[in-house]
């Protein structure tokens, strides 16, 4: 490696904000992708030594094993409240949480919406894969109508459970949030077979950075990452990406829903 290493200069490489611990995420999962996007932003903004992440409950429960920052565990759904507690006594720190759709849009919806309404200077990353992943594929608040899960074996039926919850629109419905964005994170199919684009990851990288910058300026930042869960959707990895593009992207339209500080496009 040594000879080659001298010949090549890294453009992209190791990150201080990653511990190096291999992840428990399933193959092809956007949780892993997002983990590196967060680490990259933390490195670029040089905020690692004053960042406290709040671990939520769900597939992201072990994110503190991978991100090389201080961490506090929140009860299921309460990550925004724990972050508010941190920021209220230590406004000099940065805090963020990676929440799943069950954590943020079901059991923790109150904590999310009240933090948004108060405009807490915190950063919430929501990984919306439309299912309870960690517990093995139960119906989530964001599960599309008709999707078969272990607790909606005939497909989600709106007459019984209501339609999917759109957390981004709910958050954007409040006055105080400064940055609300939805990113379609998976690689996306193109008209050419077996050719996918990586626009979501690139856009996600910028959005993560923006979300931290907005917090630094005292604003509430929320980014939803529409994602996949091939294992619990019982689809192949690339089939899951296509399903996400066909079904979830229209249901949860990507876009900038709020940008009070004008961080987009800078």
């Amino acid at each position, binding site marked *: 490696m040594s000879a*080659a290493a*001298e*010949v*090549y*200069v*890294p*453009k*992209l*490489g*190791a990150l201080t904000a*990653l511990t*190096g611990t*291999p*992840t428990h*995420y*399933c*193959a*092809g*999962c*956007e*949780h*892993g*992708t997002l*983990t*590196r*996007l967060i680490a990259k932003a933390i490195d670029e903004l040089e905020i690692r030594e004053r960042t406290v992440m709040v671990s939520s409950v769900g597939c992201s429960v072990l994110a503190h094993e991978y991100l090389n920052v201080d961490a506090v565990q929140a009860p299921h759904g309460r990550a925004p409240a724990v972050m508010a507690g941190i920021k209220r006594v230590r406004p000099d720190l940065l805090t963020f949480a990676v929440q799943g759709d069950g954590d943020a849009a079901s059991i923790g919806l109150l904590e999310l919406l009240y933090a948004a309404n108060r405009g807490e200077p915190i950063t919430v990353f929501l990984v919306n894969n439309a299912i309870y992943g960690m517990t093995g594929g139960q119906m989530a608040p964001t599960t599309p109508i008709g999707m078969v899960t272990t607790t909606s074996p005939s497909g989600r039926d709106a007459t019984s459970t209501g339609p999917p919850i759109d957390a981004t629109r709910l958050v954007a419905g409040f006055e105080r949030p400064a940055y609300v964005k939805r990113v379609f994170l998976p*690689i996306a199919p193109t008209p050419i077979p*077996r*050719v*996918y*684009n*990586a626009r979501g*990851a*690139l856009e996600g*990288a910028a959005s993560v950075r923006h979300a931290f910058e907005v917090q630094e300026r005292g604003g509430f930042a929320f980014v939803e990452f529409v994602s996949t869960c091939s294992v619990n959707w019982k689809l192949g*990895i*690339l089939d899951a990406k296509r399903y996400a593009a066909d079904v979830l992207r229209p249901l949860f339209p990507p876009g900038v829903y709020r940008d009070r500080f004008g961080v987009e496009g800078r």
Partner: protein
Amino acid sequence: MTLERPSGPDRFRVVVDAERCKGCELCVVVCPPRNLRLTRAFNRGGYHPVEFSFHGERGDCTGCGLCYWVCPDFAIAEVGARRP
């Protein structure tokens, strides 16, 4: 990081940490010149890891870094540019 324009053969390369790879193929299908492909070997996790070649089905590595950004397992350890 700003670099002078790399030159010569094999201007860019991707370093794969094969032991971290879970063989999900995301890098394979986003790589425009197809410089990454699944191998038939097994790593310790029981996955077929990807390997990098300078010359893909559709051309040479351009150092675009898409593989790095999409990889969920930090198995694309580095994207490097040859010193001029």
